[in-house]
């Protein structure tokens, strides 16, 4: 039996799911993702929500850093913008969630495009420092702006009420017996994740993504070939911050109130870690890096309870002590991240029964 289908048309070479193994994978994925919310408990669903928010955010990070090679430490700022835009539009102006969410993305994208010009002149660490500046700037503006406008530095998210199993939730999406609020949120997030991954994969396999990777690998050669490096970086910044804004909006939906607390440098670094952990430069890496990151940390928390740490250590401390050294070791042994492991498994089965 041939391990690979013989490609006879260029269209087939571009297909997302080229052969029967991929199609089997799609069927398995649909079954698992479709059944999960009915089998998982409340905690499982909460973790899934967090995982899917991270996937959308990490794909945004991947487009900018993984595809286009622009290191940004300001990713959390775009998430914060998305989250606050959604909260303000929903809370103050009563917009429905399906309208507020894309606007949140667009607001973040607009600010992302403002950073674009810096990226035209700065590279590597210099750009990273500018984006840290942006992070502090956005934090400062939101903190003080909210203080002036609302007299508080947190906002409640009305949409959250539509998705929680809480009879006092505001209109719209209340429990109608068929699906619980958390399950509805799960399916909404799933649709957003699939859409984001689809767009990212399309960028990756087409001219736009190739131009980004050319700018990443050798920007002068890219220019001489006919790639407009400035425009390419702008597109990367715009798309990346748009998805970060969507992820921020999703974060707002999943929490009853948003504060500026989580949108700090730690979150930005976390997204870079996801991209690297998954395997830089692919959509696959963004998805699995984000899932591994969000699922392993709670797992380490559970494991930490059963390990002989001093009692003074909080469960969070224990998780951090377990997780980060494991992350370091993993990257030392598999620099390509989860993608590297996947490529190795694939190669093993493609070459089977031979060793190479």
């Amino acid at each position, binding site marked *: 039996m041939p391990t690979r289908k013989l490609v006879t048309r260029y269209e087939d070479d571009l297909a997302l799911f080229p052969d029967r193994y991929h199609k089997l994978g799609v069927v398995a994925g649909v079954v698992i993702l479709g059944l999960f919310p009915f089998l998982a408990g409340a905690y499982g669903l909460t973790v899934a929500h967090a995982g899917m928010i991270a996937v959308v955010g990490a794909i945004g990070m991947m487009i900018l850093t993984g595809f286009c090679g622009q290191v940004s430490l300001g990713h959390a700022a775009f998430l914060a913008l998305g989250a606050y835009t959604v909260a303000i539009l929903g809370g103050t102006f009563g917009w429905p969630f399906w309208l507020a969410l894309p606007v949140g993305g667009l607001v973040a994208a607009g600010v992302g495009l403002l950073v674009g010009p810096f990226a035209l002149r700065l590279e590597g660490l210099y750009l990273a420092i500018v984006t840290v500046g942006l992070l502090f700037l956005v934090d400062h503006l939101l903190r003080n702006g909210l203080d002036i406008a609302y007299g508080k530095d947190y906002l409640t998210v009305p949409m959250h009420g539509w998705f929680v199993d809480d009879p006092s939730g505001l209109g719209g999406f209340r429990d109608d017996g068929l699906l619980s609020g958390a399950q509805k949120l799960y399916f909404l997030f799933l649709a957003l994740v699939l859409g984001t991954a689809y767009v990212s994969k399309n960028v990756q396999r087409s*001219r736009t993504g190739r131009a980004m990777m*050319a700018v990443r690998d050798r920007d002068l050669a*890219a*220019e*001489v070939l006919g790639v407009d490096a400035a425009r390419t970086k702008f597109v990367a910044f715009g798309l990346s911050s748009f998805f970060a804004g969507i992820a921020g909006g999703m974060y707002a939906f999943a929490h009853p109130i948003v504060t500026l607390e989580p949108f700090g440098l730690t979150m930005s670094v976390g997204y870079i870690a996801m991209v690297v952990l998954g395997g830089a430069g692919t959509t696959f890496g963004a998805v699995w890096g984000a899932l591994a990151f969000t699922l392993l940390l709670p797992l380490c928390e559970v494991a930490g309870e059963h390990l002989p740490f001093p009692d003074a250590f909080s469960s969070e401390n224990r998780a951090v002590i377990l997780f980060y050294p494991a992350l370091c070791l993993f990257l030392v042994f598999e620099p390509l991240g989860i993608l590297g492991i996947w490529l190795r498994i694939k190669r093993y089965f493609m070459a089977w029964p031979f060793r190479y």
Partner: protein
Amino acid sequence: MTDGNRALLEIDGLELSFAGIRALDGVSLSVTEGALQAVIGPNGAGKTSLFNCVSGAYRPQKGSIRLEGAELIGQRPHHIAALGVARMFQHPALFQQLTVQENLLLGRHHRYQSRWWHDALWTRKARDEEVAHRKKVEEIIDFLDLERVRKTPVMILPYGILKRVELGRALCAEPRLLLLDEPAAGLNQEETEALARYMLDVKEQMGITQILIEHELRFVLELADRVAVLDFGRKIADGLPRAVARDPAVTEAYLGGAA
């Protein structure tokens, strides 16, 4: 030499200096359409600087570079590429993590009509265009015998093949002018001969005008239609290969005054 004698590229009085160093000092050069023009000279003579001016990476202080009458100086590199100038770099400047096929497709980048939103949503336009350009890329893959490495990431390929991919990427642009910066450097005898064959095919089958920078004189004298010699940023000779090889000024530049 071709008969038409119409100049495709005209360089006139080009001057380029970096903080007191004169890299190019009044260089003029006229390249006939369809010809294989060589530019030779000792190290530091300004050959690569000349290419950098033509492809827009450097901006000369004086002079003009016209491609079929259109001024290239002051244009951004990607505009010059769109006008039909392709370049093969001295040290392969391929995109390391991309496959050979993706590198070649990048050569066609400026010929795409689709915009980023077409790509992001994978519209029919984006898909059809991707297929159409892939067909042209496959022609070049066939021309340069790159079938076996089509899907291989460039970073693991040997140097000889990298040079061929680099040539292929430039050819994929379907340029009118092809700049070859020491294409034979680092190649063995067999690879050099194969390269010479490809260059003659490019000239005869595709009719693309080529400018060749090269150190190895024998390679240049056997291939080129015309040879220009640079020394310390000045053109010291220009003419048919045989005449240039006998020019005493050229011998002096290469071998020193004592010769």
